[in-house]
């Protein structure tokens, strides 16, 4: 079987989950759900040996062959690593959620359906080689994440957070889609592998830079980079397993995956290198600084996630510097890509466990507010151990895996100094300072997280519950992750050789051809070099800052909430809601006169503009027919009649004058030799005037004050403009007859073919009989409509004001 279908196992399981939930209420639905990630994890593990030696696998399902759209599953080092993270952490999260979510109180089937949908979507994102299907899965992650954040949909904050994340990530997704279309236009293929293979020539295209920045917008919104990180803290309203899974380990890394995957295409541009590195570093500093401001445990973790994602992003940027140097394998840049992937794994392990610990505290102590917590170490020793390992790893302290990747991060940033061709030197110290200060604040918030929760005095009066250790089932998943944190520290090179090196070739395919060539050996100790002293500085200054938190915390109050990025987001949303409403209500006034004005102005401008811009106005006076006296008299009568309609004070006079105009038109028909028209016009004008009079006579007497039309200069201008336009069109059309009429055919054949002598009548019932048929239909419909209006009075009831009917 093609392994592309393996992707859809969670989705298929999602279809039957509600049945399980309804039919077998005694068992927690999570146990059934657990099958999917476990099976997938084992399945993807079987690929590890072959991929770690540099093999790749593809599997294809032709979805829309005529449009060249296929679901292509491509497994190489990078996508296998992500697939293992998704299914591995997925297993632990589902296991954790079995103990976290109450079987009787929660709508479990909804939760697990969304979660399984998300799992398929995420696997699709990391394995898709086809850009269109990559986009499809990408949006599916946005949608399932939206559903999961809004899981407790009765809470206002959940709905707000869900909507916000949806707006931001879907905005980025659409931008990314545009980038994909441009890439397909430049490269002539939707396949990412084929694009990478001919990436060299693409930089010359004009669309290249557009595609680059639009793609980065997609990656930055999804991975919560500055300034798009604002959705992530609000997404913490989701249930904690969701936060642990989506918002620390998997979905937010989709943007990192995207950057890593497209590095071989875009890293040839300096813009890519600079944007990715500097946005990543700035995000890291910004978010680590604001993490200390948070009082909610998950809030701290959210900002910490943003900061760590920024760190990984900047490493990916530093890795793409390698595309610009002569012999990158020899230089120290080789570290950056490795460090990025390494830290990505480490972050998934320790952040997942920390989120789960935050969930446990919420579950057992009843609050996540760090101001109410403290001194939980004695009652929750296991949770404390796990949290301790997680935070110390996050802070970058040995013997935990975060230390190794943080050292490599510093090495990579230091290596930028070697890079002279970009006139880097003046920026180098700035980069180093940002990275270093960011690391210090990372240390501070890590300590803040663990010590303010577990050490110190317990405020029993503030806690809603009597805290106690969590059930064993809830502790298993975070404990496994914490064990991994330590294990990875001691065996980094095994992880490096099996998982990271194959991923590095995917990011830097031009430098190495097989994983063995990647010349990196991770060592926990590499002498008294610059990195060491920087780490010592981080710990020393971080410790001092941590001790002094109460003293400098007032810094955060200097910047009021009203100028924050959240406030800006709210302003933008409010602008679109009220501002657009204002704009539309400024011209949609509900008055028919306004709309008629718009239409007539449009008519005048368009027609006169076209006439004169295309030089279509020509006046030809050679083919005119002569003017007779009686025609002039009729014209004068017509003028008089029309003026009377306009100026009459009484409407009765207007109606009579309208009759006069109609009869004059009939006389025109007579002198222009149209006997049938004259007959019809006379009869119909008579009936119309009778109808007008009838309607007028039966009008109720209320407020029927006879008034002249009030003269309005604006109306007069519009009317004059329309009159002039029509005259100009008539003159121009009259002067330019290019083709002779087809009427000669009618004139010749009216008797021979149709057996009639009156040409108009024969045209009406023979040559063009269909017109007449439907004109009869029009009359029938009009008369039926009139009967309906007169006879049917459904809305009018006694005692009810007729105006109010809707």
């Amino acid at each position: 079987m093609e392994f592309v279908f393996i992707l859809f196992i969670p989705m298929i399981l999602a279809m039957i989950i509600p049945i399980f939930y309804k039919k077998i209420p005694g068992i927690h639905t999570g146990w059934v759900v657990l099958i999917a990630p476990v099976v997938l994890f084992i399945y993807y593990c079987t690929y590890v040996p072959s991929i770690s030696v540099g093999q790749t696998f593809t599997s294809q399902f032709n979805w829309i062959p005529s449009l060249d759209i296929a679901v292509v599953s491509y497994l190489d080092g990078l996508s296998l690593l992500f697939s293992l993270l998704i299914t591995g952490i997925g297993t632990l999260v589902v296991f954790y959620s079995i103990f976290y979510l109450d079987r009787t109180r929660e709508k479990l089937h909804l939760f697990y359906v969304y979660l399984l949908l998300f799992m398929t979507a995420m696997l699709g994102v990391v394995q898709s080689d086809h850009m269109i299907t990559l986009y499809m899965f990408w949006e599916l992650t946005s949608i399932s994440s939206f559903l999961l954040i809004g899981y407790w949909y009765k809470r206002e904050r959940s709905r707000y957070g869900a909507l916000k994340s949806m707006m931001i990530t879907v905005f980025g997704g659409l931008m990314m889609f545009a980038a994909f279309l441009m890439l397909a236009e430049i490269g002539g293929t939707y396949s990412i592998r084929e694009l990478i293979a001919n990436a060299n020539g693409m930089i010359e295209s004009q669309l290249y830079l557009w595609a680059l920045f639009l793609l980065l917008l997609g990656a930055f919104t999804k991975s919560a980079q500055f300034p798009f990180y604002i959705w992530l803290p609000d997404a913490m309203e989701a249930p904690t397993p969701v936060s642990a899974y989506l918002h620390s380990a998997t979905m937010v890394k989709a943007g990192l995956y995207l950057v890593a995957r497209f590095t071989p295409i875009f890293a040839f541009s300096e813009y890519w290198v600079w944007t990715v590195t500097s946005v990543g570093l700035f995000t890291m500093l910004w978010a680590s600084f604001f993490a200390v401001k948070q009082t909610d445990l998950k809030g701290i973790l959210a900002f910490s996630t943003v900061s760590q994602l920024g760190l990984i992003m900047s490493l990916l940027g530093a890795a793409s510097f390698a595309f610009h140097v002569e012999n990158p394998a020899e230089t120290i840049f080789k570290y950056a890509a490795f460090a990025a992937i390494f830290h990505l794994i480490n972050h998934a392990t320790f952040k997942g466990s920390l989120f789960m610990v935050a969930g446990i505290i919420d579950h057992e102590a009843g609050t996540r507010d760090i101001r109410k917590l403290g001194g939980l170490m004695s009652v929750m020793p296991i949770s404390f151990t796990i949290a301790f390992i997680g935070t110390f790893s996050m802070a970058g302290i040995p013997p935990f895996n975060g230390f190794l990747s943080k050292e490599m991060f510093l090495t990579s940033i230091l290596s930028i100094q070697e890079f002279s061709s970009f006139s880097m030197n003046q920026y180098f110290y700035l980069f180093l300072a940002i990275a270093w200060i960011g690391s210090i604040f990372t240390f501070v918030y890590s300590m803040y997280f663990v010590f303010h929760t577990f050490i110190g005095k317990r405020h029993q009066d503030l806690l809603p519950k009597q805290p106690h250790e969590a059930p064993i089932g809830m502790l298993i998943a975070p404990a496994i992750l914490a064990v991994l944190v330590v294990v990875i520290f001691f065996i980094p090179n095994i992880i490096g050789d099996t998982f990271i090196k194959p991923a590095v070739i995917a990011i830097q395919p031009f430098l190495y051809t097989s994983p063995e060539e990647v010349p990196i050996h991770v060592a926990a100790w590499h002498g008294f070099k610059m990195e060491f002293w920087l780490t010592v500085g981080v710990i020393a200054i971080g410790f001092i800052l941590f001790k002094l938190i109460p003293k400098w915390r007032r810094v955060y109050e200097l910047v009021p909430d009203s100028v924050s990025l959240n406030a800006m987001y709210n302003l933008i949303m409010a602008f679109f809601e009220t501002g657009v409403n204002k704009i539309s209500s400024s011209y949609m006034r509900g008055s028919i006169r306004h709309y008629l004005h718009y239409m007539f102005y449009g008519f005048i401008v368009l027609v006169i503009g076209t006439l004169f811009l295309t030089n279509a106005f020509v006046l030809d006076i050679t083919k005119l027919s002569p003017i007779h006296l009686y025609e002039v008299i009729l014209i004068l009568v017509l003028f008089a009649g029309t003026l009377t309609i306009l100026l009459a004070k009484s409407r009765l006079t207007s109606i009579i004058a309208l009759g006069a105009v109609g009869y004059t038109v009939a006389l025109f028909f007579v002198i222009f030799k149209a006997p049938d028209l004259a007959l019809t016009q006379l009869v119909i004008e008579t009936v119309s005037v009778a109808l007008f009079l009838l309607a007028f006579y039966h009008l109720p007497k209320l407020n029927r004050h006879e008034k002249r039309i009030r003269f309005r200069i604006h109306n007069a201008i519009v009317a004059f403009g329309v009159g002039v336009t029509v005259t100009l069109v008539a003159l121009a059309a009259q002067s330019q007859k290019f083709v002779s009429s087809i009427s000669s055919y009618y004139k010749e054949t009216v008797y021979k073919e149709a057996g009639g002598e009156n040409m108009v009548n024969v045209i009406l019932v023979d040559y063009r009989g269909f017109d007449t048929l439907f004109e009869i239909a029009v009359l029938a419909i009009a008369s039926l409509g009139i009967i309906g209006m007169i006879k049917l009075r459904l809305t009018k009831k006694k005692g009810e004001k007729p105006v109010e009917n809707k």
Partner: protein
Amino acid sequence: MEILMSFVIGFLFMAAVYLMLSRSLLRIIIGTAVLSHGAHLLLLTMGGFGGDAPPVLQHGETSYVDPLPQALILTAIVISFGVTAFFLVLAYRSYQELETDNMNLLRGIDEDD
């Protein structure tokens, strides 16, 4: 003659538009009636005024007026009559129900938006 008729038609259109922009429903319908007169005359004028005889076969006659625009106008007259009659009854009914024919007062209720 055609140029003169073009101006007449322009004048009819102008009057019709002016009437349609007024506040009274009845005047708007009068405006549409005037507009249809203008359109019919425009059709006839654009067909041209050449030809000596009306379009009915006569012995020995060769130069007939173009019959096609006349057929078109005949259709248009009937249709505009049907529509005008419908509008008039509509105006009559709305006057009965809503007790006004002032277009400024005929507005949707805000809750309908």
